[in-house]
């Protein structure tokens, strides 16, 4: 049995961090949330740009994503910062988060008489919440209680052969140990969706995989763009990619080889799901990282070649770099050097085991480079419709 140590929450989930989350119910509450976060140690905030002047399905999506984010086991308590007139359902956020058993408070800027009063009130509440949860001890947890999210960004020729293969190794290992692994980036599936569908546990899941790819392409077509045309690009071909399948597989390989259990919607939060799952997300960092933190992932493994430094406020992000030159050049931002596979110094399995050891340490509290430098404020919620 592989044990790690985390913060056990009333709903049964286990966190790798113990923050108070300051959640703006709408973008108009960002400055208040940010001011509170700056004042109180042990808090994190989520400065997104949604929650008003959107169509009802998107408003539901934002409400649900923020609820899922609040449920993250890495948050021990939550303070919702509402403006008062926003389009999201702040009352539902409060009720659903309260139902998880964790301490939840809410303030309304308009009701409190403006920004400075809200900052004052919110700071007092956040301070109380931090005091309330900061003494919680880590308890033993089984590896099967882990939820790992994965992503690649700032990719180059090395990503598909080194860092993504390392994450694939780790993904298989975690799935075999009974844990949950979530991957996304639906845009990357184009050209390889048939290969993913083949790994689906049943016909319905296979159809879901085709469906999310089709929906994403349809949205692109609605503004006149064909995402398949000219793939792989001349730049890809010059870099060595011979077909759209090869390009797609280079990204998909980070999901490992195990069966795909199902497809999660962007706002969904993992409850009892085990094994390998897809979450329907775009590839861009601000949106996918939010979506992955909302699943309840305690951390993320992030593969890069050119050196993408982004992280997320409540979810430690382990950077695994496939390019040995980038690793040397950006040592302060990259956690693991998978480039040693390409220089012949290490094997995929060796770096895979290093990554596994690293993720256990991160689950137990060791900071990632990204956390230490707090490079994680740029985030957003992925919406589908127009802004009004």
């Amino acid at each position, binding site marked *: 049995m592989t044990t790690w140590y985390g913060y056990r929450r009333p709903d049964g989930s286990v966190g790798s961090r113990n923050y108070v989350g300051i959640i703006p119910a709408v973008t108009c509450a960002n400055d208040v949330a940010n001011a509170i976060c700056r004042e109180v140690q042990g808090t994190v905030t989520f400065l997104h740009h949604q929650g008003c002047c959107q169509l009802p399905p998107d408003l539901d999506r934002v409400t649900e994503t923020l609820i899922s984010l609040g449920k993250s086991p890495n948050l021990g308590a939550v303070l919702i910062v509402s403006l008062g007139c926003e389009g999201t359902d702040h009352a539902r956020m409060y009720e659903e988060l309260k139902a998880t058993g964790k301490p939840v408070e809410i303030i309304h800027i308009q009701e409190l008489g403006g920004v400075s009063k809200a900052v004052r009130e919110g700071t007092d509440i956040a301070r109380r919440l931090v005091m309330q949860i900061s003494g919680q001890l880590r308890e033993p947890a089984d590896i099967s209680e882990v939820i790992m999210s994965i992503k690649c960004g700032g990719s180059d*020729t090395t990503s598909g052969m080194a860092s993504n293969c390392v994450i694939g190794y780790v993904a298989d290992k975690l799935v075999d140990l009974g844990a949950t692994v979530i991957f996304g980036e639906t845009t990357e599936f184009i*050209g390889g969706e048939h290969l993913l569908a083949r790994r689906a546990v049943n016909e319905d899941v296979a159809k879901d995989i085709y469906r999310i790819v089709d929906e994403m392409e349809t949205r692109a077509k609605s503004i006149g763009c*064909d995402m398949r045309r000219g793939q792989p690009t001349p730049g890809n071909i010059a870099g*060595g990619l*011979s077909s759209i399948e090869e390009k797609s597989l280079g990204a998909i390989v980070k999901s490992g080889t195990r069966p795909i259990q199902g497809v999660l919607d962007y706002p969904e939060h993992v409850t009892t799901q085990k094994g390998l799952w897809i979450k329907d997300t775009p590839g861009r960092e601000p949106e996918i990282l939010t979506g992955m933190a909302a699943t309840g992932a305690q951390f993320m493994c992030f593969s890069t070649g050119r050196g993408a430094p982004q992280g997320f406020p409540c979810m430690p992000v382990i950077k695994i770099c496939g390019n040995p030159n980038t690793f040397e050049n950006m040592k302060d931002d990259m956690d693991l050097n998978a480039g040693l596979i*390409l220089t012949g110094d290490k*094997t*995929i399995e060796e770096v895979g085991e290093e990554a596994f050891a690293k993720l256990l340490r991160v689950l137990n509290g060791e900071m990632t480079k990204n956390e230490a430098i707090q490079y994680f404020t740029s985030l957003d919620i992925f919406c589908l419709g127009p802004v009004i």
Partner: protein
Amino acid sequence: MEELKIALKVNDLDNVATIFANDVTDGTVVEMRDKKGNREQITVKGDVPYGHKIAVADIHIGEQITKYGEEIGIATKEIVKGEYVHVHNLDSMRGRGDWETEKEAETV
């Protein structure tokens, strides 16, 4: 000692490996490694840029080319072990192309 020139094969089913070395030209001997670190010397046929592929077995015309344990295309020519594999001798197997191709497929 001459610099080690690595060709990486990531899945046991693969019949291609990717070169991670510069100055690999016709006749260069590269060392193929698999994910466990097993190695084999292969003589390269053709000039192969960094990040491009070579065959690690003979591949006959019409046979599947496999990388990551999955098919990435079909051989459009006879390919011998060590030979450069790219768009000149590999064709995508995807029926679904861009809009134009799709429309044609729909009308058939």
